[in-house]
């Protein structure tokens, strides 16, 4: 492969943060002799992508294969991408500093809805044709996966294959097949057709996109172009998750990245069943790794990486049936070494006095809780399953244990929300502040801070709220304004997301294949790094929609009957449509559904459908 380093080296002094591009970090893996080369790309800058779990996991599983090498690639920052274009330097991988176009396969993870234009930016910078149909035999196979694969259509033309679900097993199957066929001299078309037969692999070019009326009648928006192709794509799971070692090699970056610490995945899946939450549907069922596995892995990981902080990650780490034991053992083993042990998100109902003492040792930064809605009625609608008492109990414990700052996350625009629910957010935050003050010694009360952070509800594919429309940006601003006027305490501050960005998210989340043209047009008009406030170009997205004559307000804001076939009906997270429909009905009736890892099964369909079971180490107690 071509070594671009000599050319890159000359440009690096002009880069804003050279450490993004220099590679050679502790823990980087080099397999120069491997004859099959895979590049795993994250469609944003190094400091966002290096921390990404998918990049780490998939590079590790591929590097573990004989004769296969995985390298990392990230999108250069906007200013450096411009420099590279001007100098004719193509997008490169880190380890070999080789052009992406020279790899056998390029995998791009799709972490959130605002990364779509960055996928095009990366392909373009790499000199790889944007459309799968324009790629020749010599171009890399371009595959995608990650959260956004659960509605793959807005990305359909750009990928040869989109992988649904957890990549540990399926990625290796796919690459091995590709390698064998490449060695046998198969054509690109033959390879794509063969991969399309692997469960969980969707090759969009082999399916026609149907008009709405036909899709509703047929029960699917896609139709195979020939016989013998699968028509339903069920997510893949990593079946060995619970028993696999929690420690896995990782790169220790030079420059500061997000989540710059040892991240250890202690469990996968969350079945609390929040009805807006895509992750809760995507990663079912719950699978816990054992305390012994976790403790040994954390200690080994700290020794091998040199980090001074470890985070026990998952969607809901305090739900682990052995979490108290794990924290106690780790606190004991790390005592006196200046090592912090943290948990990324705390559930209100499992954060008690014990947890407050076990987490974060002596350093008490901010604490974040997510009540999501301001009234019990609305929390029941979304099945959040936490009460005011849970919040106040958690606040009492946290502030008595030494915390002084607390951030509360809410969502605005949830289905059935009224002005009373908005005022409820203000009321809840103010009462939480009162409780916090009471739990703190009088002389420290001035330090107590409470902040409210509001996101706009984005309907997500594969959730019970997938049929519910988003409120308009104007209405969102009205509700934010109502909230701000309702908050009377100066110590409680309110933050909110830009509704125009959330609008793009909603369209990308719910749109069909027609949205791919919108993404491409917006990118051509300068949209990239849309998740960065300073780069988001609302105008580019609007003009692109006008130029294409798309009515995107419909896509984002329309509320459907649950009989409506959504554009991702051919993709399944294992959760049955019937169950999603029932959850949507229960939401409207303000009725909750229990978590099956604590209580009875609600028949979502994942376990029988995927042939798996909940794996808890001990009985969970709520």
């Amino acid at each position, binding site marked *: 492969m071509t070594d671009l380093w000599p050319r890159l080296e000359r440009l690096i002094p002009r880069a804003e943060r050279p450490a993004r591009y220099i590679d050679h970090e*502790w823990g980087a893996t080099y397999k120069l002799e491997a004859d099959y080369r895979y590049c795993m790309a994250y469609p944003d800058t190094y400091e966002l992508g290096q921390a990404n779990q998918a990049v780490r996991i998939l590079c590790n599983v591929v590097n573990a294969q004989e004769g296969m090498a995985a390298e990392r690639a990230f999108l250069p920052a906007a200013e450096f991408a411009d420099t590279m274009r001007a100098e004719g330097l193509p997008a490169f991988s880190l380890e070999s500093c080789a052009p992406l176009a020279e790899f056998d396969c390029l995998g791009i993870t799709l972490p959130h809805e605002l990364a779509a234009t960055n996928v095009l930016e990366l392909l373009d910078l790499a000199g790889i044709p944007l459309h799968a149909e324009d790629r020749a035999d010599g171009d890399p196979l371009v595959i995608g996966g990650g959260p956004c694969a659960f509605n793959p259509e807005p990305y359909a033309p750009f990928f040869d294959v989109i992988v649904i679900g957890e990549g540990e097993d399926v990625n290796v199957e796919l690459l091995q097949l590709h390698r064998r066929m490449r060695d046998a001299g198969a054509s690109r078309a033959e390879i794509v057709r063969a991969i399309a037969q692997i469960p969980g692999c969707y090759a969009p070019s082999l399916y026609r996109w149907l008009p709405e009326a036909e899709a509703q009648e047929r029960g699917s928006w896609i139709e195979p172009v020939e016989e013998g192709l699968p028509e339903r794509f069920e997510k893949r799971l990593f079946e060995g998750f619970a028993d696999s070692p929690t420690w896995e090699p990782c790169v*220790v970056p030079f420059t500061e990245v997000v989540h710059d610490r040892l991240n250890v995945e202690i469990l996968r899946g969350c079945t609390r069943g929040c009805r807006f939450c895509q992750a809760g549907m995507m990663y079912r069922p719950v699978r816990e790794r054992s305390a012994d596995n976790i403790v040994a892995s954390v200690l080994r990981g700290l020794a091998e990486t040199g980090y*001074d902080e470890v985070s026990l990650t998952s969607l809901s780490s305090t739900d682990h049936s052995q979490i108290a034991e794990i924290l106690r053992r780790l606190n004991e083993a790390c005592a006196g070494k200046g090592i912090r042990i943290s948990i990324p998100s705390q559930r209100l109902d499992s954060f008690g006095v014990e947890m407050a003492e076990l987490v974060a040792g002596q350093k008490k930064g901010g604490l974040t809780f997510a009540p999501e809605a301001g009234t019990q009625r609305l929390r029941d609608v979304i099945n959040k399953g936490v009460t005011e008492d849970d919040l106040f109990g958690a606040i009492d414990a946290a502030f008595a244990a030494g915390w002084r700052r607390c951030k509360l996350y809410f969502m605005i625009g949830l289905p059935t929300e009224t002005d009373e629910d908005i005022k409820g957010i203000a009321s809840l935050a103010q009462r939480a502040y009162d409780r916090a003050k009471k739990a703190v010694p009088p002389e420290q009360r001035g330090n107590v801070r409470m902040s409210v952070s509001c996101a706009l509800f984005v309907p997500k594919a594969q959730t019970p709220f997938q049929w519910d429309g988003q409120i308009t940006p104007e209405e969102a601003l009205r509700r934010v304004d109502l909230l701000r006027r309702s908050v009377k305490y100066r110590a409680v501050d309110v933050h909110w997301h830009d509704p125009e960005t959330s609008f793009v998210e909603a369209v990308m989340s719910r749109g069909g294949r027609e949205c791919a043209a919108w993404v491409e047009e917006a990118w051509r008009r300068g949209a990239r790094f849309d998740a960065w406030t300073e780069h988001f170009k609302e105008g580019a997205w609007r003009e692109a929609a006008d130029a294409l004559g798309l009515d995107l307000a419909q896509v984002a804001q329309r509320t459907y009957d649950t009989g409506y076939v959504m554009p991702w009906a051919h993709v399944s997270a294992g959760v049955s449509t019937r169950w999603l429909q029932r959850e949507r009905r229960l939401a409207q009736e303000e009725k909750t559904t229990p978590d099956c890892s604590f209580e009875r099964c609600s028949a979502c369909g994942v376990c029988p459908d995927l042939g798996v079971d909940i794996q808890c180490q001990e009985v969970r107690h709520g």
Partner: protein
Amino acid sequence: MANPDLFRLRVTFAKTGRCAMLSHLEIARALERAVRRAGLPYAISQGFSPHMKIAFGSALPVGVGGTEERFDVQLVRWVDPDEALTALKRASVEDLMPSACAYIGPKEPAASVAFPVADYEAVFSRPLDALALPETVTVVRKKKEKVLTVADYVVSAPAQEPLAAGEGARVVFTLRSLDTGSLRPDLVVQELLRANPGAEVQTITRTAQRAR
């Protein structure tokens, strides 16, 4: 003065190759992690936010390497310096490699102030025609302009050592830092580039640091 019950280990290392592109903060973080990976019995501070007792030598700008850089780490028990060096080498990346470990006394000045005089070497793409520096340079610090008198900082002025034909030229100079601040070596190089249009700089390296 450092705590006399602790052992101050002074580590000499090189910042070379690609790592010359790292910032001082990035280097500091990388070195701290190497100390932890090496398993040295480092001391931690007893504050609200406990952290490793480690102190770094004077900062190098992004893009400037160094062959004799130093940091001091305090240990809670004595470790044979050769063993410490072996462990650190095993725990370090190629371009931030330690070369020596030695204990220093509790009263010795910290690595950041012990070596105000430093030799630099810059390699240019071609021999330079003009080596004289201007009398003053203007720098921007915290949005304020400041005029530095070059002579205050220059211990020995840039001198050229030709390399083999076609390999450019090596220019060496020595700078001192004052209590009030210092003149960055990359600024000196910039001035040389300004005086020699068409020349390009390939590397800038701090080759030695000393007390006087």
